[in-house]
């Protein structure tokens, strides 16, 4: 009964979507707004990666919301699990020697790679979110391979989270006060195209986001693991 009703609903959805898709063939040419971004994105924001120039330049306000959502998820997770009595998730197997040694070798490399990814967000694929996620996956590896779980330092992670978000906002507010009166306006010089120190405020914001996302995603894992001490 339930399955039948849901299949009928899904078929109606499919029928509607197919009707709508007939207006938008796959692989057609870009429309006005996207064309503007690819044509002028280079001059407007100074980033070689047009996706970055859209994410932090044209649609930077979305990214502020996105950063807020992640911050929110971290807080919400802590709220949901905070009133719970501390309880371990059962006995852990001792990690094997290979895992442990591999971790020691890989962990610095993963952190380095994550840092590279978010530093070069305006030049190559990647950015604050991807770099932060890479760093967080390094911490997941740490939880897997270190026999006695080392808890994340909550003071440091709180500091990273808050300060990272605040840097983003403060840069936005500086843009509002300085020169032209626009929130998130790019007030730093664009610099030489396709070099590390270019694209104005974009690398600064991406570094802040990278630290913030890295510490937030690791904290989500950490809060979920919550072993009894």
């Amino acid at each position, binding site marked *: 009964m339930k399955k039948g009703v849901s299949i009928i609903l899904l078929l109606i959805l499919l029928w509607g979507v197919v009707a709508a898709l007939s*207006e938008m063939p796959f692989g057609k040419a870009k429309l006005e707004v996207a064309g503007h971004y690819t044509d002028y994105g280079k001059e407007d924001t100074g980033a070689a990666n047009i996706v970055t120039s859209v994410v932090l330049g044209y649609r*930077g306000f979305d990214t502020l919301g*996105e950063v807020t*959502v992640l911050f929110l998820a971290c807080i*919400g997770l802590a709220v949901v699990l905070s009133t719970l009595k501390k309880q371990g998730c059962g006995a852990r197997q001792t990690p094997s020697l290979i895992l442990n040694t591999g971790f020691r070798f890989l962990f610095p490399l993963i952190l380095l790679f994550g840092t590279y990814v978010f530093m070069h967000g305006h030049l190559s694929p990647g950015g604050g979110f991807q770099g932060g996620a890479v760093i967080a996956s390094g911490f997941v590896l740490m939880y897997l391979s270190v026999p006695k779980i080392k808890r994340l330092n909550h003071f440091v992670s709180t500091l990273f989270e808050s300060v990272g978000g605040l840097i983003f906002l403060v840069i936005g507010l500086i843009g509002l006060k300085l020169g032209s009166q626009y929130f998130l306006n790019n007030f730093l010089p664009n610099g030489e195209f396709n070099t590390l120190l270019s694209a104005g405020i974009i690398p600064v914001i991406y570094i802040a986001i990278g630290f913030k996302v890295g510490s937030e995603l690791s904290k989500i894992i950490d809060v979920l693991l919550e072993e009894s001490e």
Partner: protein
Amino acid sequence: MNEIMNLNPVLLIAVPIGLAMLVPILGLMSSKIVKWVPVVGFLFNSVVSLAVLPRVLNQPIIVKIAGFAPPFGINLVAGPVGMFLAALIAVSGFLVAVYSLDYIHEGAAEKYHILFLLLLSGATGVVLTGDIFNLFVFFEILCISSYALVAYLGNRSGIEAAVKYLIQGAIGSSLLLIGIGLLYGQFGTLNMADLAQNITSFSEPSVFVPMILMVTGLGIEAAIFPLNAWLPDAHSSAPSSISAVLSGIAIEVGLYAVIRVVFTICHVTGSFFVFLVAIAVVTVLIGEMSAFGQKNIKRMLAYSSIGQIGLILFAFSLATEFGVSGGLFQMLSHTLGKVLLFLSAGYMIYRTGSMEISSFEGVGKKMPWTALFFTIGTLSIIGLPPFAGFSSKFLIIKAALAKGDLLYILLMGIVLLGTVIEGTYFFRVVQVIYFKESNNKTEPEGPPVSGLISMSVFAILVVLIGLFPNAILKILTTAASELLNNLEYIRSVLG
């Protein structure tokens, strides 16, 4: 004063978000000041939004984020509708924050304040933004913080309600995102004014399907009839101050987004409104009839919110200037009345220790002020003069009659029947509060000063608006013409 008037409306969103991110750092230093942060934030928001409001009545303020012109960058449209709702959110947020100063004492209070700030900044973002994807992002902020706050108390019913709410909310936001993708694929823009300019007819499947998807997705948050299963559980399991905000603000923001999609982006005409009116009438009846049988006060109030949402939707789908301004007025009076009801019920529950209506016997003598505020809220929601609810319901009735169609007059009759049911169950509660003697001899003390202040301000606002409805009628008619006349909206955004 002049300087405040010239402040950028983007601060209404940026300042609460910034304060929320500042709270963990402040919490490391001192836990005492944390609870004042939302108060400060929403005081700022109230002052700014009330100061800017008169200015936008003549000319909407278009805020270009990062300095890119509208179709290319994100823009905020601080028009009459947006600023009116933002001011409403800010003022009620401020008063509820004052109320929470002493009300929130269990659980992780620091995180409560962060979530409260983010919930309302998400709501402000939804009403101010002029970009459909940006609306989605702020909508998610609103939804995720509500999930967390519903589960805040951490009891069995709270967790269960949050789980149900999250499943339905997540489906809703996915549907919304599919709708946005379909619109972007055809028109290549995400700006609401630009979309509205490009959409010529709403009845083609390529526009109709995304519109239905978006209305469904947003309608889950607005609790329109077939999508309202989560609401009574969620609103009754949250802390009372949060129930107040969810019932008074969150669902109205959802409804605002539905109205924005239907009126401004797709510019719907004719037969679709008949469909909306039918849904609205069913929503009123379902809400009021379910509320009638409730023994739990918060569930009763939550179901009554469903009925009120139906009434607001009914007013909007009349699609006349009278009707839309009546709907906006009803939003205002519902917010004030329902927040007042939840806040006063919160202390009555706290002092008697039970949510059952029957346990409120004798509260009228022991907590006279709280009982008085509850009664004022009740009378306003039912729609008796001289309270705010009367003026708004009267305006809606006038609008339905002015429509001149027998169908609408008939449906209005059904909606009035819903109001009669509403009156019955609310009077039953008032009767229990005042005219039943309690066997319980313990003396429940009244609420603390902060609670009294915030509730009395709400009560004063309800009475004042009820006595002088003409004072805000100008704002409402300007706002209604912004919603009805989407050419005006397009011209003011795109220039």
